[in-house]
């Protein structure tokens, strides 16, 4: 499993960014809008680019040629794999939590 512990406080924004880019390449503002729409989380620019820089360094996202100052990003194959693993892990937590809520005690 790909280790995302060193993403620190950017681990949650990173998951949101990867989820957003899973549906296609986007520039910063489009990512913010998309993330707000599907998760209700409003990412601010400093947090977005802090996470984006880390994801780029890990090779999980990559920049595309910029269009009128805005640079789109796309998720890489390794990023897809990391996202799958993280979502699977969250899914296990969700399943367990729901099961325990249904049968308390």
């Amino acid at each position, binding site marked *: 499993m790909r280790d995302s*512990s*060193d993403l*620190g406080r950017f681990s949650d924004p990173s998951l949101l960014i990867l989820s957003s880019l899973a549906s296609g390449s986007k*520039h*910063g*503002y489009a990512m*913010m809008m998309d993330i707000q729409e599907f998760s209700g989380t409003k990412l*601010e*620019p*400093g*947090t*977005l*680019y*802090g996470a*984006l*820089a*880390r994801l*780029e*360094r890990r*090779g999980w*996202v*990559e*920049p595309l040629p*910029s269009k*009128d*100052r*805005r*640079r789109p990003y796309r998720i890489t194959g390794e990023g897809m794999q990391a996202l799958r693993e993280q979502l699977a892990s969250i899914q296990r937590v969700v399943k367990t939590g729901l099961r325990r809520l249904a049968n308390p005690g």
Partner: protein
Amino acid sequence: VRPTWLIRLYPREWRQRYGEEMCALLGQHKATYATFFDLLLGALDAHLDPQAWRKPMSFSPERLRKLRTAAATPFGVFPLFFVLWFVISRGDDSWRYLREINPLASVVYDILYIGQTMGSELSLAFLAALALEFCTAAILALHAVRSESSDTRQSAFELVPLAACILVVAAALVRGKFDWLGTVVSLPLVLPLLIGLVLSKAALNESTIRLVLVASILVVLTMVTTLAGIFVLQVMAAILLPSPAWPLQLVPGFVGICILAASTLWSLWRSLNGGTAPSVPPDVGRANA
């Protein structure tokens, strides 16, 4: 008010890479107090995140070699200068006498000693910080070879030079009251850390190596101030005193410091001339690889 000016708080390399697109984003984004705070936090994070702003060396190998020589020179020169100054200042009885009888000589004497002391302390603090920066770079390089380290751990390593700087400045303050103690505490901080310079062969970054120029200039300024003070005081002694003393160690010491200052200047001059290798924006290069 658009908070685009806050992007100036980010490291230069960061701005070169992400500045334009962040400005474009802020042009569309409705800024709130949270945006200002977030950008401030982001800038702080970018400064504490060594991987974000450390870029690969873009100096040519020849220039790098000259810069490394220029970096090593003040480390070697400064202790020698310290010894020579110690030897010369043992025979300053006639200067002290001159100081008592002539107000102008008193001013020159004070400038010489204050300049020499402050210059030495500053040089010492800077060299210690620089040496620790080299050590940190070496540790980071070794660490990176062994394992992919966490950002938090690397940020902690970044604080080491700062801590060393504070330690040396504290030692310098103590030195004002206990002369021998300050010297005992601060000098050994510099010398063993020269090893860091040797170990950090492949790990230096440009911002660090540019600090070398500041260290060299500080050391040279200290030596020039000292030389000028010695020269003026001795000339005044020759003019004003009926039988001025010419201590045995004065001329060799003076010439020695001249040679040390000249060699530091020469290595500094050499390091300023040399080619640069074409540089590739590191993040884009890595991402496209």
